[in-house]
């Protein structure tokens, strides 16, 4: 099977037998479920959009998914659908003067949010920029790989979903498979997304990622504490994105996101924008704050700043 990044390999490398086997397998289970498929497959096929599920429907869906994932990953998987907490609007801060570009956040995020390991999907991308040129994306390097960071003359800018107040990705979705929740988090219903990737074209921050292949997630590395709209395992052919660790932050008491928790230099901040006493409000009111691509009027709730 071809793997990601190796598209230079010839496309036809399979034997005839493998091909026939493939044809038979696919013909059987082509786009639609087979006739003798278990009831859960049909339930999943006819499942309504998350926002149209009645409380009873939702209970059934969560139970079905928990059963399916628990069997697949051979551990007790929880799938919750914790609603937004009233009075909270999440905001994120990133201190560019502190970030050293170590990418610990990238991998903590992958571990927490059950991203595919093969091929790798990263919700956070860290850009290496030149101090001389400032925040110039045309000059950004994502694949820097020195023995030690930070490198002289450079600074680092992690980019992930900016949780826009006016998200262009939501506007363009032809089936309303993605939307902004009341607490400001933009989520995707992986059971409703048709995989057209229009949202990826619309996102100005490269925050959306597609499952080009069935995600490779080893059982041992699977995080069983999941949220329906967040880190539950994803099927092939749908789009996914950062949800501010919805499975963590919506708990009472809430937990910090995995990237905030792991950051060794304290460059990452998180809090409630509606709470005047929160750290985020302090930063916005007292530091030199900027948002990415301000001219596009997306109103990110992800604030970059220089603390020192």
């Amino acid at each position, binding site marked *: 099977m071809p793997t990601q990044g190796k598209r230079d390999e010839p496309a036809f490398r399979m034997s005839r037998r493998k091909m026939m086997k493939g044809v038979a397998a696919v013909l059987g289970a082509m786009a639609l479920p087979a006739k003798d498929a278990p009831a859960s497959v049909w339930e999943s096929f006819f499942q309504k959009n998350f926002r149209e599920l009645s409380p009873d429907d939702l209970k059934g869906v969560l139970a079905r998914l928990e059963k399916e994932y628990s069997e697949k990953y051979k551990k007790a998987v929880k799938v919750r659908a914790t609603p937004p907490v009233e009075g909270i609007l999440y905001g994120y801060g990133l201190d560019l003067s502190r970030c050293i570009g170590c990418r610990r956040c990238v991998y903590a995020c992958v571990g927490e949010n059950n991203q595919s390991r093969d091929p790798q999907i990263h919700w956070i991308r860290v850009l290496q920029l030149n101090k001389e040129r400032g925040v110039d994306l045309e000059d950004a390097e994502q694949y820097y790989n020195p023995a030690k960071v930070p490198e002289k003359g450079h600074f680092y800018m992690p980019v992930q979903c900016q949780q826009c107040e006016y998200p262009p990705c939501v506007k363009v979705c032809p*089936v309303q498979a993605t939307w902004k929740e009341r607490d400001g988090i933009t989520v995707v219903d992986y059971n409703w997304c048709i995989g057209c990737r229009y949202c990826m074209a619309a996102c100005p*921050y490269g925050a959306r990622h597609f*499952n080009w292949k069935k995600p490779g997630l080893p059982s041992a590395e699977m995080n069983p504490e999941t949220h329906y709209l967040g880190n539950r395992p994803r099927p092939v052919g749908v789009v996914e994105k950062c949800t501010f660790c919805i499975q963590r932050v919506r708990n009472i008491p809430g937990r910090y996101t995995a990237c905030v928790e792991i950051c060794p230099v304290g460059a990452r901040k998180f809090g409630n924008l509606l709470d005047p006493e929160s750290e985020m409000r302090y930063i916005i009111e007292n530091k030199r704050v900027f948002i990415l691509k301000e001219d596009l009027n997306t109103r990110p709730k992800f604030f970059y700043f220089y603390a020192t």
Partner: protein
Amino acid sequence: MPMRMIWGFFKGTLVLVAKGSKAYYTWVFTLLCFMGIGFLAYLYQLQHGLIITAMRDQVSWGFYISNFTFLVGVAAAAVLLVIPAYVYHWKPLKEVAVLGEMLAVSAMVMCLLFVTVDIGRPDRFWHLIPKFGILNFPQSLLAWDVVVLNIYLVLNLTIAVYILYNLYHKREPNKSFTTPLLLFSIPAAVSIHTVTAFLYNGLAARPFWNASILAPRFLASAFCSGPALMIILFQVIRKYTRIEIRNEAIFKVAELIAYSMFINLFLLGAEVFKEFYSNTVHLAPLQYLLEGLKGHNDLVPYIWTAMIFNVSAFFLFLIPQTRENYVTLNIGCVLIIIGVYIEKGMGLVIPGLVPDTLGEIYEYSPTGIEILLTMGIWATGLFVYTLLLRVAVPILTGEFFVGDDGRTAVIVDTEFIRRADHLAEQSYRD
């Protein structure tokens, strides 16, 4: 008994498409082979996921959507030929309208197939159907596109079938029914291409697409490629079948292409001037397309080929001597079809995504599977057009009509694709 008459007509068409000369069978069989290969490629893609394409997160749309965009233009322009047919009172107006509409139908079928093979979850297509799923109308331009493309498909199919069904029953189609529909199909053709342009145009994240000149450029280039394709098809059709299409009509279409190409090149020039002179960060995609960026220049040879082809074709169609010479005319048509296919296909889609929103350059070129699948869809489109013509041509020439009992079909034309000298020997309407 109208139901019985419709059934008789339908049964007749089934018998008709199964009959034909050796050339017809060979052609259909060749197309079926390519369709089969394309289908296998699609099964392979379904099994492994879209990873077998060269698309990735950076370039999330590729060859499929490029072909889709080009074909929307063909579908639109095929019908727009009805305008000059009316204005200049061409004799074969009915023929031009029917052939154009059938081309539009075939192109629409290809468009819908290209979208289908591009989406990650074809099993969830029903999410787009209002009532069953949720169509995000009017917010999403993709929802608009779904609506207008389907209306356009049904509209053209209705007009063409209505005209043919009446001619088959040896009566003139009711003008008070066809004329309003034909007139409506003109703004509908403009609208499908405009909506498709807006689909790209509305994305502020992609400066290459986010230019207001995009929709006019789409229309101008469609007015070149669609008619160029029609000129070639007209010649093929009149050579191998009994349909008569006069030279003046063909030369007039060629003249219209020259004007459209001028507008197309002018709009392109306006865009190039604005980007290069103002030299902002938005220049990068255009630079990537025209000269390459940071050593990445996969698209450069293609776009310059397209430019040279388009400019050459413009002059061939502008000068009356070359326009009215079938050798140079056909060269011009081929140049335009290839030129616009590059310019409005990969040349439009890929630079919209390269460099990506965070400045990364990922060079996209389609994989073998993508190419085979694409060929399969083109073969499907040609197959649909061939079968439609197989029915339409004998009806238009009076060689397929209803018998005296009002039900059984009479098939005079058992060959369809005939050698030209053969045609001359047989008297018209035997």
